[in-house]
């Protein structure tokens, strides 16, 4: 165990985490130059590569011959790079004894990095600061400042900073040496009762769930009967091994190891990230701390564009949850959209990923409704109701109070943007909790904000208002009462349930005005005039109208080319089929997401 080192990389998007990981693998001979063709081996999902983020976790074992003459086994555990997945980050940090803190020499420290860093420090990890991208020409002017930031942040000495360029291959050996020298070897007793932490699991169609674990104490070998402590389920181990580039079966792993196992587990939901694995007949005394159930925070309706495809969509969602246990879905119906599902996600990014995967990997054509949070509604009869679909909010007469989830947001930005950020957060009903100056020109601000105000375009707004310099991190805090109302949309007098939203009373008018005018843009002319109204209860707060179609015919001579005309009609008919009908009004799918683009 003395020769083992388990570590992860903490970095902001684009600060070079994946490139550094690739370089470490190359340097330790785990991958050859030739295998580097696709680059960025850790992010192997195409969506991850496109978005430059890590969604699923990976771990890779490397062998390193250090300068002291010994060979070391290094386990690099990858971490997701987005706030939606911060719980997963905390679990993967827990599987390590040390972390590389990678900071871009031209950008400095960002909010996401700081919150992950604090999490790592809390968990007692040894931090190795790495200033990356030192070869960029602009680093000359920024590097001293960035160094100072990191030193201030960690309270470390300048000599401890490693200057590197993953891209150019500078400093890679220094990093590996530091991993060996500074990160302590894992502790634990291979003979004690088994205590292993699940930090990730993936679904393999042939073997069932493949569970990635860090073993703290004890040993697990094939045929052992294991127990998941949080769920209480037991299984017999089929295959046990470690992770090189691919799974490598060893039959046994023990204290200090990072590895995987399979046990004919059918559902990903049965292997909860953060759960403790032990031996059923000889369980450990206590589970590893910090486990919690991951709960969806953002909800939206997902409907098949063609209502005939409902069952296909159900099947696709079912398959998707095989390798994404964080999605929840249950059937719901809407008068506008027919039968579909109310789905829950960890956050907006997670929602987008799910939507994209449904379209790309499962070939589904879907209509999604505007995302919303889950409200806690206190009824006059004392009941508590959870509402994750605005259309299901009871009438105001039977409601005592509506509560909404709040977050604690941390925003780091250059000091010149303090005013801009304050203004944005106050517009979004936020309260400032405090500010800390990280350096003379960088400030760390924290706010209490309703999650509902953040799920729309808050992040985009924050970025554009600060020319991309601000970074955001947040954690969920609690539910608080708010003066909230349901804003309905009526088309020619008929309520479109899928367009209802819950908004703050003081914002309802403005919201209604924006929404009606956006819908006017998005709904094509019909053969009759369409009145668009926004209403709170029976009170109309905004209105607009779409005038009737005047001309829609190609008054032209087709010669005898009827085939072309037929194809054109087929295409138009397909377009119509994708529209949803409320009363006689045909609504294109984009309209259901109108709220997301109100300011464009």
């Amino acid at each position: 165990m003395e020769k083992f080192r388990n570590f992860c990389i903490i970095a902001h998007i684009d600060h070079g985490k994946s490139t550094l990981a690739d370089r470490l693998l190359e340097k330790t001979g785990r991958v050859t130059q030739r295998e580097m063709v696709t680059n960025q081996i850790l992010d192997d999902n195409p969506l991850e590569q496109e978005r430059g983020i890590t969604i699923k976790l990976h771990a890779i074992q490397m062998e390193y011959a250090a300068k002291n003459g010994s060979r070391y086994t290094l386990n690099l555990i990858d971490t997701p790079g987005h706030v939606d997945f911060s719980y997963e980050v905390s679990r993967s940090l827990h599987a390590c004894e040390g972390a590389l803190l990678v900071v871009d020499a031209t950008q400095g420290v960002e909010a996401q990095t700081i919150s992950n860093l604090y999490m790592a420090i809390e968990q007692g990890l040894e931090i190795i600061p790495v200033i990356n991208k030192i070869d960029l020409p602009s680093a000359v002017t920024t590097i001293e400042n960035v160094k100072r930031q990191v030193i201030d942040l960690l309270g470390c000495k300048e000599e401890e900073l490693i200057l590197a360029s993953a891209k150019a291959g500078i400093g890679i050996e220094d990093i590996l040496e530091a991993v060996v020298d500074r990160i302590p070897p894992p502790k634990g007793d291979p003979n004690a009762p088994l205590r292993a932490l699940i930090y990730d699991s993936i679904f393999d169609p042939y073997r069932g769930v493949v569970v990635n674990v860090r073993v703290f104490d004890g040993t697990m070998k094939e045929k052992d009967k294991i127990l998941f402590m949080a769920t209480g389920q037991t299984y017999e181990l089929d295959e046990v091994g470690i992770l090189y580039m691919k799974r490598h079966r060893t039959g046994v792993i023990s204290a200090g190891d990072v590895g995987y196992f399979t046990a004919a587990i059918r559902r990903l939901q049965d292997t909860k990230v953060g759960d403790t694995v032990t031996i059923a007949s000889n369980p450990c005394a206590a589970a590893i701390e910090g486990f919690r159930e991951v709960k969806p925070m953002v909800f939206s309706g997902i409907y098949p564009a063609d209502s005939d495809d409902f069952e296909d969509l159900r099947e696709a969602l079912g398959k998707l949850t095989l390798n994404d246990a964080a999605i929840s879905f249950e059937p719901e119906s809407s008068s506008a959209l027919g039968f579909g599902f109310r789905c829950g996600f960890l956050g907006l990014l997670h929602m987008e990923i799910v939507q994209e995967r449904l379209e790309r990997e499962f070939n589904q054509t879907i209509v999604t409704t505007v995302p919303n949070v889950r409200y806690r509604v206190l009824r006059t009869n004392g009941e508590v109701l959870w509402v994750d679909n605005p259309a299901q909010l009871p009438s105001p007469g039977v409601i005592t109070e509506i509560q909404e989830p709040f977050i604690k947001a941390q925003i780091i930005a250059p000091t010149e943007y303090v005013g801009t950020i304050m203004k944005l957060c106050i517009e979004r009903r936020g309260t400032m909790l405090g500010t800390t100056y990280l350096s003379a020109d960088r400030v760390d601000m924290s706010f209490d904000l309703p999650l509902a105000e953040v799920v729309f375009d808050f992040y985009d707004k924050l970025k554009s208002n600060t020319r991309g310099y601000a970074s955001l991190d947040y954690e969920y805090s609690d539910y608080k009462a708010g003066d909230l109302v349901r804003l309905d949309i009526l088309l020619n007098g008929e309520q479109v349930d899928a367009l209802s939203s819950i908004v703050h009373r003081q914002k309802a008018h403005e919201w209604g005005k924006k929404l009606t005018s956006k819908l006017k843009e998005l709904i094509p002319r019909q053969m009759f005039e369409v009145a668009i109204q926004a209403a709170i209860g029976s009170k109309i707060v905004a209105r607009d109208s779409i005038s009737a179609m005047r001309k829609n015919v190609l008054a032209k001579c087709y010669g005898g080319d009827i085939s072309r005309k037929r194809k054109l009609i087929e295409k138009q008919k397909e377009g119509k089929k994708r529209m949803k009908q409320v009363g006689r009004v045909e609504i294109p799918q984009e309209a259901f997401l109108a709220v997301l683009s109100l300011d464009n």
Partner: protein
Amino acid sequence: MTGFYIHVPFCDKKCSYCDFYSIESVGLIERYVDTVIREIERRADTVPGPITSVFFGGGTPSLLSPLQLQRIIDTILRETRITSDAEWTMECNPGTVSLSSLTAYRSSGINRLSFGVQSIHADELTFLDRIHTADQAFEAVDLARRAGFDNVNVDVMFALPNQSAEKLSATLDQILRLEPDHVSAYSLIYEPGTPLYARMKKGLVVPESEEHDAELYALVIERLVSAGYEQYEVSNFSRNGATCRHNLTYWHGLPYVSVGPSAHGFVGDVRYWNLRSLTAWTEAVDKGELPEANRERLTQFDKIVELAFLTLRADGVPLSKFHRDYGIDVVAALGPQLGYWLDAEFVTLNAQTLRLTSKGYAVCDELTVKLVGAIESALLAS
């Protein structure tokens, strides 16, 4: 009823808006005539019944010399069965005809002429790249009458950029003064691949708004109907029953054999289209092949759908035919939306026909998609 179409792919000058196949190499006409004669010979036995209409379209068929035209007509008469009262139409550019050529066409058997007059305003004719003046157009129609033609069509275009109602009205006045038997009124369409389309993409031309286009279309219909013309298709108006029999074969789902580059034919269940380029088409015919680019066989489903949208845009959906031949009750298939259409005066309905009103013609494509959707649902249900 069976039609026969000859595509003549030559123009002195190609119009900026036109997306029919045509080239300016008029020196190739003689060679084309030889080839088209061979294609007629080749296709003659595919003609399903006696021919009731022959149509020379283009391009500019009036670029054919009377002798060239005569050779083609002789071939048709020799190779096919054709009714004695068949309609023989020829499209003419007013800038390419004379009394002697028109007289010769008439004596060859052509009995209907179609003139592309388009507009009486010099600026509009220039914009469209027309090679004739308004006066030439009036003179051409006059010459046609003198040559003995009693069935003359005039094409007019509307929704030209910056075209005011007054300007269009003046064009319509002049055209009505010519007392044509038939008027085709087309709105300017920006077809991909045309020079006009390229100019629009560059922002050099701005299409008229839907409102203005609709106003002008309503003006066309109102003026022609009040002058005694009957609208029997989106763009077509006739007086004293002088409908274009050939075009009705298209809109009634009836067969037509077509020859010449890019020509489209419909025989039995098959729609075919010839090679578009003159060279490729000539080579294929020379090799003794059918000069087709492609063909498609229509299913019963396709045929029903086609009949629905073709008859809707023309003189009405024949309800009894749908019921008798295909077992479809169109009225029931449309369901409650037919009630809205009747209330909004988009259609009229009697025992035989569901027919568009002038207001309905303006939104024909919208209604077509709904009609086709309703008929498809009815077919799938049965």
